[in-house]
């Protein structure tokens, strides 16, 4: 763009912007705004029954509303805490009457997930009696009794010399 046409363009832009930025509103513009504001204010402020008492009560409510909200919230919180503390005290004051009795269900899912009491301890084996370990060999190998019931025709291995003990 050459300087002449640029200058012309800038002049055109200036003129257009000046026209845009100096537009004047129609006559009595401010009067219309104030009238609308007054109407809005009346609509907002007039009480539903048109009574000054309601008007004042609404103003009072506007001023004291947040304080009342806070007060009621504190009251509810206090009731909850007091109830909780009372309940806790009542539980602690109850006499200890032994372990709670469990009633186990005999079947169903509850039976599987229920708390099962431990089985009674088994009686210890008398001294000198091998107990459950009597059938085991010292070397850890199974011993086949000579009179073991076997199918006819099945050969048995000869017992080891030390297995006679």
């Amino acid at each position, binding site marked *: 763009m050459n300087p002449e*046409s640029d200058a012309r363009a800038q002049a*055109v832009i200036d003129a*257009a*912007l000046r026209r845009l930025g100096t537009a004047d509103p129609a006559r009595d*513009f401010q009067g219309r*705004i104030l009238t609308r504001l007054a109407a809005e204010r009346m609509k907002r402020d007039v009480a539903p029954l048109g009574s000054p008492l309601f008007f004042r009560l609404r103003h009072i409510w506007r001023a004291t509303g947040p304080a009342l909200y806070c007060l009621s919230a504190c009251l509810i919180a206090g009731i909850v805490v007091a109830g909780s503390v009372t309940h806790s005290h009542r539980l602690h004051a109850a006499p200890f009457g032994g372990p709670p009795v469990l009633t186990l269900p005999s079947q169903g899912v509850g039976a599987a997930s229920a708390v099962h009491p431990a089985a009674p301890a088994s009686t210890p084996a008398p001294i000198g009696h091998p107990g459950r370990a009597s059938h085991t060999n010292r070397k850890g190998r199974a011993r086949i009794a000579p009179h073991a019931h076997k199918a006819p025709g099945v050969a048995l291995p000869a017992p080891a010399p030390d297995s006679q003990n």
Partner: protein
Amino acid sequence: MSCFEGQLASWTAPALARTVDSSQTIAQLVAEYSTALYRVAFSVTRNAAEAEDAVQETFLRVLKHESRLGEIRDYRVWLVRIVWNIVLDKKRRAKTRPEGEDVADHARTLPSGDRPAEATVISSQEQARILAVVDRLPSREREALLLSAVEELTTAEIAAALGTTESSIRSRIFRARRELAVLLEKEGIAR
């Protein structure tokens, strides 16, 4: 007056006094800033009725938040921001270019006798074509350019209204004018 009503009156008296104060403040704001706000709105809407509606809506919002009037530091910037948001929101909702752009309407709001110099430079039709080209600029540049057209606003106030710095506004205006000149040259408007 009963005792109860007397007590009520003593409680509500400060609130009523505040109401009177705020209504006076709002009336002063209307007297002082309504024309500037109209120009801001008109720069976007290009329609007298829509611009007037936007200004009225602006003051309705002020009325709605009248309890906060004491906290406002710069009324002009605050009001410009409100009206700017309103017109942009309306434009966005319309989802069109400034549809209300009406050359005849524009000519009516601008008495020709007041601006003889501009009238000789461009006609109303040319003005409309130039503004159509302005609408093709990038939004940031266009917004800065349109607000710079409003005589009452300084660069600092435009920057505050758009939430940016003065230097940013200056560079946006510079870029907008340069680009606009090129577009006008292409359109054959600035020959």
